[in-house]
């Protein structure tokens, strides 16, 4: 690091809570002039909260922000923009049918006597685009550009505001490989012109390719800030996940001590060469009857996408899915369910529970057709089923008629699990089944998953808690940028190996066979 570099932005001891729940516990962040600074962390780390405070979208509860030499307190994004702190989000805010130049100068069009000076606007836009090394016609409508170029226009707009600090939030998530390299050229050029960049991404390659330093947040706290040249990938992953590779923790989950039926039963799920948009590699997974297979990887590695695609909830670009040897055509979740699959999403509130309906109705929703005769739902059979499962999973509710959104997270999750158990399910796809659930319920759910597997169900479990994967799963498939890079079982299936595979990919472990 060059000692002469000066600090542009310095945030000290930033605290922020949302309705009593702390999101940031006192975070420090320091950005130097002409620096590309990576900001990383898993779900709930506090990245987006920090960015929003930086840009004035949120107000901090306490702490100091120094920008240039002054202490600042932005009331809104416009104030931050005015002094040169601008964020470019994934969802780009442009007007499709106006031209590139109009978008760049939107709201600040050069004018004389109240009339927009188009010539000045177009030459001004051309000048900025040239500075970024882009060949885009300022007169063409933004709607006619591809996503990458639209993103460049958004960046050009930020530059035209005189951005000294540019925040890029997952800028590559919808770009192809070549588009990414164009973006990187632009970023490097900006850096050489003295602009500082905050770069948020989960793709390790990109961080190492373009960033100077990295700040890792976890659970609203600073973990580390360090030049990337001195930080190994493995260490970075360990910081993000909060695990040390040599750390030995046994028996932290309710999975521990359960027999893992190593006996090879017949193959249940065979998914091959699954491909999604923008991803280079492909994912292959196999699940046997009675087996729990873990899916490991960082946020954005394609874990959820894999589960959703297997369930027909998200289109696949390529690949085949076979269940008990039968090739499936998955156009919607309905097809997957008919084939015997079930899915618990990671976001219970967004696409799990139906908040205003009762526990009874939520629990029986998937099984309703089997409780129905002549289109009429049998309340008696419904009640019987609900009683059975509320007892079996010890769901705590005032009664079956209580609205589900009034239940605790753990109990909601149990209801959603029961929703699938009262159907004839062969394969359970679980996306972070124990996230956001209190310790007690967490153990119960883990025990339940193990029991279900012992009874012959196949389980594919996504988890960010490596212990859960190590102790709960017979095999762990590691994903990285939409590709299965390693498959670990038996002795190899340990914390160190998983972290290693997440960080370094296939080169350190045996590659996944077909």
């Amino acid at each position, binding site marked *: 690091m060059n000692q002469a570099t000066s600090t542009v932005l310095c945030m000290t001891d930033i605290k922020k809570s949302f309705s009593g729940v702390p999101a940031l516990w006192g975070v420090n962040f320091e950005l130097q002039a002409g620096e590309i600074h990576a900001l990383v962390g898993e779900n709930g780390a506090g990245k987006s909260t920090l960015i929003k405070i930086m840009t004035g979208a949120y107000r901090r509860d306490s702490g100091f922000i120094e920008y240039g030499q002054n202490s600042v307190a932005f009331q809104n994004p416009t104030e931050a923009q005015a002094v040169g702190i601008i964020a470019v989000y994934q969802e780009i805010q442009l007007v499709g049918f106006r031209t590139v130049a109009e978008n760049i100068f939107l709201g600040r069009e050069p004018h004389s006597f109240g009339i927009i000076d188009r010539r000045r606007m177009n030459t001004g836009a051309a000048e900025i685009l040239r500075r970024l090394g882009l060949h885009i016609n300022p007169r063409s409508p933004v709607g006619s550009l591809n996503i990458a170029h639209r993103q460049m226009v958004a960046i050009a707009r930020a530059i035209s505001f005189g951005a000294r600090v540019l925040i890029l939030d997952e800028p590559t998530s919808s770009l192809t490989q070549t588009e990414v390299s164009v973006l990187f050229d632009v970023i490097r050029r900006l850096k050489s012109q003295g602009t500082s960049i905050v770069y948020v991404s989960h793709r390790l390659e990109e961080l190492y390719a373009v960033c100077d330093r990295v700040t890792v947040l976890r659970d609203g706290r600073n973990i580390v800030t360090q030049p990337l040249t001195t930080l190994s990938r493995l260490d970075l992953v360990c910081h993000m996940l909060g695990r040390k590779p040599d750390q030995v923790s046994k028996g932290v989950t309710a999975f521990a001590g359960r027999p893992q039926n190593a006996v090879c039963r017949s193959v249940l799920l065979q998914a091959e060469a699954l491909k999604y948009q923008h991803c280079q590699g492909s994912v292959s997974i196999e699940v046997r009857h009675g087996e729990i297979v873990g899916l490991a990887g960082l946020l954005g590695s394609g874990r959820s996408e894999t589960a959703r695609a297997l*369930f027909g*909830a998200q289109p696949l670009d390529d690949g085949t899915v076979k269940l008990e040897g039968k090739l499936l055509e998955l156009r*919607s*979740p*309905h097809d997957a*369910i*008919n084939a015997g699959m079930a*899915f618990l*999403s990671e976001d219970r509130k*967004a*696409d*799990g*529970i*139906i*908040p*205003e*309906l009762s526990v009874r*109705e939520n629990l029986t*929703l*998937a099984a*309703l*057709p089997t409780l*129905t005769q002549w*289109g*009429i*739902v049998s*309340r008696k059979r419904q009640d019987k089923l609900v009683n059975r499962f509320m007892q079996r999973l010890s769901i705590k509710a005032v009664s079956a008629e209580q609205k589900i*959104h*009034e239940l605790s997270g753990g109990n909601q999750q149990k209801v959603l699990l029961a*929703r699938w158990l009262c159907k004839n399910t062969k394969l359970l796809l679980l996306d972070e089944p124990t996230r956001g659930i209190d310790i007690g319920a967490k153990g119960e759910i883990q025990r339940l998953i193990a029991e279900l597997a012992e009874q012959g169900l196949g389980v594919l479990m996504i988890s960010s808690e490596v212990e859960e994967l190590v102790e709960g799963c017979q095999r762990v498939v590691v994903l990285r940028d939409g590709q299965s890079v390693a498959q670990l079982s038996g002795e190899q299936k340990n914390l160190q190996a998983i972290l290693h595979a997440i960080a370094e990919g296939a080169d350190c472990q045996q590659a996944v066979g077909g």
Partner: protein
Amino acid sequence: MKSKKRGSGWRTLWHPNFGAPAALLILYIANAVFTPRFATVSNTLNMLLQVSTTMLIAVGMTFVIASRGIDLTVGSTMALVSIIVALLINHGMVIAIWAALSAALLIGLINGFLISRLKLDPLITTLAALIMWRGVAQVVGDGRIVPFAHPTLEALGKGYVGLIPIQVVIAAVVVASAFFCVRSTLFGRYLVAVGGNEAAARLTGIRTERVKYSVYLISALLAGLAGLVETARLAIGDPSKIGVNAEFEAIAAVVVGGTPFSGGRANVLGTVVGALIMQVISTSFNMLLIPFTWSLVLKSLIILFAVFVQRPQEV
């Protein structure tokens, strides 16, 4: 969970199963005391008669709103049905009714396709449909009012079963079936699931598209029925007048009755009560010789109040 306590006074006052019926009761009793000849059997039946077409449409609207949609087409559907019946009645009543209701179903099918398959916004889609189908109805009728004489058909609008007008009987049957449908059928349960959380419903294997299709079909069919009854009562096909503003009366009844605009709940009986409240206000203002326009003001205040007490709670 804690926040439930806040402001619960107002909310329990307008609890869907309590507030609106109480308001109706108070209105009725107050009128019985202050308005001469209000609380008589004939006036009550008369009010039921006048509200029955609105009731039919409002029941359909309850389904649509419960699915988190809206259907502004209903008034125009009535107009199209009206002119088709009037033009075809000479070819026989069965043919006329069959053709008219088919037309209504077609409207529902198109709405359903645009909204559930093409994912267009229901408000704009049905607004466009409202304009279009009223236009089509007037083109079909060549801009004229078409009178007809057909005692059997007219009985649908003017006849009585004992003391009770046939219209009211029809509305009662529709309300009862709708109530049962929401409460006990697979479709009814899917409807509230889709309205309550469409993404979750889809991930549970519910074919949400089909549910939304059905909802617009039901709404169109009931609007067609309302148009039929109205036409029979007036014995004219009048594409420019029939069903004007019917959609707004229906929406008002649904909202006042406690079916939230955010979907996920279908309160059919509430809708009935909502429609009755509106009717009692119209009738009593009329009987007290207060200018009709003032009843609009009071109605709008009631709608606003209903929306106010039902506003989404902070969690």
